[in-house]
């Protein structure tokens, strides 16, 4: 267990518009995660493009996923997107993701704690809000799903982005913040109190 693992969280513009910044932060603070960087900013196209940087293999996988979904619903992807090539579809989906994250100002943050990546993903809930469990941020605040989003030719409104792996977190933190913007040199009181509890044993 790495006690100082870091993860990137971005409250996307759908969350900002709905006034859910405080709600998201509160949930991360409640479990005892430590906030070490924060900026309200407008992401550039270039940042969005790098943030969703994907190998051809991954884009193809995203595209194939959509094609499979469409097959189940007996919808012709060519009619909808003008293509049934998984890679081309993958590129379209990436385009939507970049569009959503650059649509308006977002709140980018870095949170630190033991297994922070996994803990934040758990609190965020399933990427598809409809599938997300009640009690998770997405489960409590969004009903959106891929069928509706695809119909409206957009990415799902899922309130926040959270790094999926420690490796991805490292890449994303470097993309959104410079080293001098990270303020990890302090202790939150929850930790302080817990340390005291054990040292007095």
């Amino acid at each position, binding site marked *: 267990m790495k006690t100082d693992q870091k993860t990137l969280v971005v409250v996307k513009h759908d969350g900002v518009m709905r006034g859910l910044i405080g*709600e998201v932060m509160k949930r991360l603070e409640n479990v005892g995660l430590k906030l070490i960087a924060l900026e*309200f900013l407008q992401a550039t196209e270039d940042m969005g493009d790098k943030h969703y940087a994907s190998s051809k293999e991954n884009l193809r996988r995203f595209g194939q996923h959509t094609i499979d979904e469409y097959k189940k619903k007996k919808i012709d992807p060519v009619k909808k997107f003008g293509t049934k090539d998984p890679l081309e579809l993958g590129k379209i989906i990436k385009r939507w993701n970049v569009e959503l994250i650059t649509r308006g100002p977002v709140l980018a943050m870095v949170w630190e704690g033991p297994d922070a990546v996994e803990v934040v993903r758990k609190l965020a809930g399933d990427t598809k809000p409809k599938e997300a469990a009640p009690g998770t941020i997405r489960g409590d605040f969004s009903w959106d799903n891929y069928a509706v989003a695809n119909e409206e030719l957009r990415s799902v409104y899922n309130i926040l982005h959270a790094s999926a792996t420690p490796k991805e977190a490292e890449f994303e933190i470097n993309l959104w913040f410079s080293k001098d913007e990270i303020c990890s040199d302090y*202790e939150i009181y929850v930790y302080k109190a817990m340390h005291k509890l054990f040292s007095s044993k």
Partner: protein
Amino acid sequence: MLKPDSIVRSLVGKIFQRFEEQGLKLVAARMIKATEKQVSKHYPYKDKKWSEGIGKKSLENFGGDIKRLKEAYGTDNFEEIGHIVYRAMKGYLISAPVIINVWEGNHAVKRVRHLVGSTVPTFAEVGSIRGSFAFDTPVLAVKSGRITFKNLIHASDSVEEAEREIRIWFGSKYKDLSNYERVDYVDIL
């Protein structure tokens, strides 16, 4: 500005939520480590009038009792007390990061002041941010050796002061990002 105590006590989300619920719109925010230079601009302790003002306020906090004031600070000279308080405030503000944030809305300055509550947390209105989450007093702060009391948050008291403070704390990194809609009042404005 959310001061270090709101951050180490994990109250940032709750405080942001209060502002959002009021329909205030976030315009700018950054987490930073305050520098001595910023603190000395924010609290101009070299200005005799400012320091003496702090000394006078301290006397008020001790119920106008000069003897108790002298006992607490080791002096009854207002300017010296101002300097002692300044040094303590500097220590407080650089003890952990702060979050500087700018909010926009109808009568934003007045409403934020109201929402934050009066300066001394123990006497702040119940339901205000300080009244809900803080409990310090100047006398307790002096007694426990901290000198300056913790009150979670600073809010500008006029538009002019807000502009001055944005320059101090954000400097060239300030960017007004208010050009977006909030769903709460999409049909009002």
